[in-house]
């Protein structure tokens, strides 16, 4: 039985192109599904989309659960990095909370709580230094 890494690697070999990155299971699953729905021959030829085989479907279906978890995990890490970058740039919790879509009256409290929850979920996540242009910080 092949593991997730081997399945992603196999699909990378078949589907990845310089303009089509497959970094993990979310992209691998999407690429096989997109390939199956690319019915236009001109597009298929132009974009070098292979025809999915049963072996590809086997790999992609086996990666569905992992892809679902990873897609959410990547977004949570992205959110954590963005929140901490905003703090690094001197933005307030109120400002962050409003951008995240919380109601104005509870934005500060909700943003802090969300950050704490994300930090608890990824205790080992280290962002190190941030690269930010803060020459024109606006509120």
């Amino acid at each position, binding site marked *: 039985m092949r593991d997730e890494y081997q399945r992603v690697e196999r699909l990378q070999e078949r589907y990845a192109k310089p303009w089509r*990155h497959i970094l993990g299971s979310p992209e691998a699953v999407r690429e096989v599904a997109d390939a199956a729905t690319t019915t236009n021959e001109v597009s298929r030829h132009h974009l070098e989309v292979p025809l999915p085989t049963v072996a590809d*479907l086997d790999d992609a279906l086996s990666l569905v*659960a992992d892809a679902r978890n990873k897609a959410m995990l990547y*977004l949570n890490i*992205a959110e954590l990095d*963005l929140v901490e970058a905003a703090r690094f740039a001197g933005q307030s919790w109120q400002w962050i909370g409003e951008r995240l879509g919380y109601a104005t009256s509870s934005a500060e409290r909700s943003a802090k709580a969300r950050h704490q929850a994300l930090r608890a979920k990824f205790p080992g996540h280290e962002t190190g230094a941030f690269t930010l242009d*803060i020459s024109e910080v606006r509120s």
Partner: protein
Amino acid sequence: MTRQEGRARLLIGEHDRIKRIAQRYDRPPARVIVGAQDAVREVSHAVVNDSYGAPVPDVLDVAAALALVDRARKDAVSDHELAELDLIAAALGAGQSWQWIGEQLGYETVAAARSARSRYKILYARWARFLDDRALVIEVDGQQVTIERMQP
């Protein structure tokens, strides 16, 4: 402002944010930003200096990306469900059994066929209105096969 007007304003805001990030971060052909997920990923990678060739993000980029996090999460779920639906339909078209599909999806052997069929039914009902022009094409025994999507 009515609820519909509020929603419309929100969508315009999302579109503008994606457009702003795309204008600054697009590096075709390798990096083309077409939605909220791409936009959030690009800016979040750039703030930790993990995105080759990306501009140095400013606070407006971070603000736009933060405001797109929720949309990106919703889009990820939608994309994933549509992909799962397409893959199940393609496997059925390739002649695979519900049992086989269920096992690939990780369901327990005894309930695999039933669980897979039930999952397909749920996804089909949710996305039926988007499926009209989504025919499927795969390779079976070296031959290209166009598949008509099976109704649950």
